[in-house]
């Protein structure tokens, strides 16, 4: 198997020994060339200062500190590694974040003689915020405390409250001496009480997890390639995969087309997936520029001009509200402003508090408005489409790193999208045919996709709106008319109304269809024997024993739809197949492809379920 790449970063407070550790690691696996070692030897004041292997700037060597990230490379037979050795000083936090933004794992050093310091917490927290999900605390300078187990364990305990904040993260501890090399490459003889792997062994075994939880295609268009008649849309796939023939949604125009081919210099590949850089040619002619996005039609990104995000503020001067900044997101660069500072995180407690100012190296939660819509996912779901930087248009400096946590509805935008989406999904069928099960699952799917959706379940309606009604034909008809009336109101207001009711009479259903217009009839069909066997509510049993008069299918007729938009054969297909049928129908019969509106409440819920609760 070809070796794979693991990127990791080192962080921690000043003088905790980050650079020395990297130096030791490289030295002990013989990844340092003789001439480089010679140059370090010459520069060292006494003996061999391994920190000089990464502290390559003159100022760094003079001051004995790390100012900026140094990247180092090494490989073992199992893996290729890229190390970002980052600075510990608070003033260089931005450089630490630079290193952590692309890392799969973070090594946070703790000087055993000094314990957990504010920078330890800040760096662990920033690494976690940036999506690093493997954090290794290296308790360093064990040689200075005679390699005592109790001292190591005390340090581990000190990280207790910090660890609680790192939800969803694998946290690991290794006692090391970077100076002496204990537990760096080789397991230490000095600490027989520690049964774990050395740092290198651990690094070789960290599972590589994809940084995206999204299966739908995201291809930000970086560049349009023109050659004669040929038009190719070039970009690096940010999530999902694509095949020739796939349907894609073009954003912002919301047109839909198919992929003609994936173009490559040698052989056109059948399929391409993240993080490949590709060129797609599409069927038809479209106006697509840099900044556009090609996306999956059934699983598109969110689109909004008002987003909520976490910012790591990096500029010397504090954040200014209502001032123009450039938002660089995927291949887009749009004007925008921070409209509200919601809270700022206290590094000591890692709690968020309302604040009036966001200063250098602070982490805040803000609301941002952009002049054009962004097409995005939450950072928790996908780093590439969930991240952005803010650039000051006057100084040209990168002033903040941003991670999208949610979005607010934007009035015009929402109207344009969801009025088109309004319709009634009418599930009809025998009792126990599966209407409730399917309609609830469809409700969940649409809700998760960001639609405004409402469920009108026959059983529930009868305990509320229609509790005065019985089961005579007239009452049954009245029940259906009331449901139809409410569904119509919802549909007109852009809501997807999901009705689940036996609604046995064809004429009554057709009456609702005529009233509502955007009406999708879904016949949930299973033979009577099957329904009777299921008898979820015990009603068939009751009816057969004569305790439930005029029960549909037993002593009252069920008139099946003659030409339903969708038929779900629940005796033959799985729930997932039935639900997919409904969703696919909706996507295929949308007057315009449906794009999603995401509300902040939902986004918070989504984050909570993804293991990223609110810190």
């Amino acid at each position, binding site marked *: 198997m*070809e*070796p*794979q*790449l693991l990127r990791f970063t080192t962080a921690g407070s000043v003088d905790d020994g980050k650079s020395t550790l990297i130096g030791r690691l490289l030295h002990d696996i013989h990844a340092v*060339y*003789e*001439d*480089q070692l010679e*140059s370090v030897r010459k520069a060292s004041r006494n003996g061999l200062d391994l920190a000089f*292997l*990464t502290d*390559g*700037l*003159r*100022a760094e*060597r003079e001051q004995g500190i790390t*100012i*900026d990230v*140094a*990247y*180092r*490379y090494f*490989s073992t037979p199992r893996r*290729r590694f890229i190390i970002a050795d980052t600075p510990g000083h608070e003033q260089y936090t931005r450089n630490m*974040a*630079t290193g952590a*933004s*692309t890392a799969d794992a973070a090594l946070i050093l703790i000087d055993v003689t000094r314990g957990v310091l504010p920078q330890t917490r800040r760096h662990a927290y920033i690494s976690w915020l*940036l999506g690093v999900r493997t954090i290794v605390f290296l308790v360093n300078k064990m040689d200075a405390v005679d390699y005592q187990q109790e001292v190591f364990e005390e340090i581990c305990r000190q990280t207790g409250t910090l660890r609680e904040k790192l939800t969803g993260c694998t946290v690991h501890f290794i006692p090391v001496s970077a100076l002496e090399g204990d537990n760096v490459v080789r397991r230490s003889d000095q600490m027989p009480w520690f049964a774990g792997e050395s740092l290198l062994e651990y690094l070789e075994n960290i599972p*590589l997890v*994809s940084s995206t939880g999204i299966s739908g295609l995201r291809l930000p268009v*970086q*560049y349009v*390639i*023109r*050659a004669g008649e040929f038009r*190719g849309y*070039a*970009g*690096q796939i940010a999530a999902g995969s694509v095949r020739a023939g796939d349907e894609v949604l073009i954003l912002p125009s919301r047109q839909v087309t198919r992929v003609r081919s994936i*173009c*490559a*210099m040698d052989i056109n590949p059948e399929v391409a*997936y993240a*993080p*490949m*850089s590709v*060129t797609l040619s599409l069927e038809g002619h479209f106006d697509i520029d840099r900044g556009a996005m090609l996306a999956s039609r059934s699983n598109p990104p969110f689109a909004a001009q008002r987003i909520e995000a976490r910012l790591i503020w*990096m500029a010397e001067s504090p954040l200014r509200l209502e001032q123009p900044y*450039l938002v*660089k997101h995927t*291949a887009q660069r749009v004007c925008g402003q921070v409209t509200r500072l919601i809270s700022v995180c206290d590094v000591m407690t890692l709690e968020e508090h309302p604040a009036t100012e966001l200063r250098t190296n602070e982490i805040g939660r803000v609301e941002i408005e952009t002049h054009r819509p962004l097409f995005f996912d939450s950072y928790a779901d996908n780093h*590439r489409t969930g*991240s*952005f*930087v803010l*650039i000051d248009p006057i100084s040209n*400096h*990168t002033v903040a*790193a941003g991670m999208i946590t949610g979005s607010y509805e934007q009035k015009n935008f929402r109207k344009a999208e969801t009025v088109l989406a309004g319709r009634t999904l009418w599930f009809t069928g025998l009792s126990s045919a599966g209407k409730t099960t399917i309609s609830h699952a469809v409700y969940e799917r649409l809700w998760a996709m960001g639609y405004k959706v409402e469920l009108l379940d026959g059983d529930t309606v009868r305990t509320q709106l229609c509790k005065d009604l019985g089961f005579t034909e007239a009452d049954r008809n009245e029940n259906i008319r009331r449901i139809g009336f409410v569904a119509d109101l919802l549909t007109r207001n852009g809501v997807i109304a999901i009705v689940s009711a036996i609604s046995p009479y064809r004429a009554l259903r057709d009456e609702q269809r005529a009233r509502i217009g955007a009406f999708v009839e879904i016949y949930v069909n299973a033979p009577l024997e099957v329904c009777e066997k299921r008898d979820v509510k015990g009603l068939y049993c009751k009816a057969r024993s004569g305790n439930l008069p005029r029960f549909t299918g037993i002593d009252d007729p069920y008139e099946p739809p003659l030409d339903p938009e969708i038929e779900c054969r629940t005796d033959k297909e799985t729930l997932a197949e039935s639900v997919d049928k409904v969703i696919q129908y909706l996507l295929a019969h949308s007057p315009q492809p449906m794009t999603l509106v995401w509300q902040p409440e939902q986004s918070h819920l989504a984050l909570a379920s993804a293991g990223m609760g609110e810190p």
Partner: protein
Amino acid sequence: MPSHLSHLRMLEAESIHILREVAGEFARPVMLYSIGKDSSVMLRLAQKAFYPAKPPFPLLHIDTTYKFPEMTAFRDRICAELGFELIVHIPREAREDGVNPFKLGTQKCCAILKTKSLLDALAEGGFEAAIGGARREEEKSRAKERVYSFRDAHGQWDPKNQRPELWNLFNGRTDKGETIRIFPLSNWTELDIWEYIHLENIPVVPLYFAHERDMLVRDNLLIPFQQDVPLLPGESPARIICRFRSLGCRFCTGAVRSTATTVPEIIEELKGVRWSERQNRVIDLDTEGSMELKKREGYF
């Protein structure tokens, strides 16, 4: 479907992304072409990034005129084959003034023939972005470079005040006169370069392969013997089987003793090598931190 790319394909995807960002964001970018192995890989990546079109930027070669004849021949052949636009900048004035490392020392020679020429050529062409093949692994100050390296109006690098560069989001904003240097090969190692050359069957200058050559042995360095190299007292060339790991000007590029005559042999050799690829670059050995000083002045 594989969930992860091999590390070479990962590096390839990252570099192509960078090249396309440059093409998408800058009005007038240029790609520095130095004829070496890294440049050869960069050419292939540029070809792939914009296929079936040609790269939307010209190539620029700073020709100090002290390059090996094999290099110039290779350059002209490859550029003609690919049909890429090539600008060759020759610092004529300096050459007429007789600038050479024997007279001025390597530092000044480099400053005039390479750094100043580069800045002149960028200004002449009105290029606000220059793509270079430097890799972080090569040298300790290059290890500190961003992918987008901001240079002030004098082409100077300020390593203590670099723009934060998170994810793959690059800030290419400049004011008039300021430039950005872009390094798409930042994360490639020498071994990656050769493995990719092998994988993609990329042509390289024959000087990289072992051959018996006339060499001068000087301060533990193997310097190629040519008629215009002044001999030290008592010195005479010897026939030595060697190859070049890194290519620059003839006077300042040392060879290594090697018998590797094919790309796979070079890859095998590199796996066991104990010396860095720039150990034979005389210009790096001037003073401690000499690359950083050169970069601060505008060098790549």
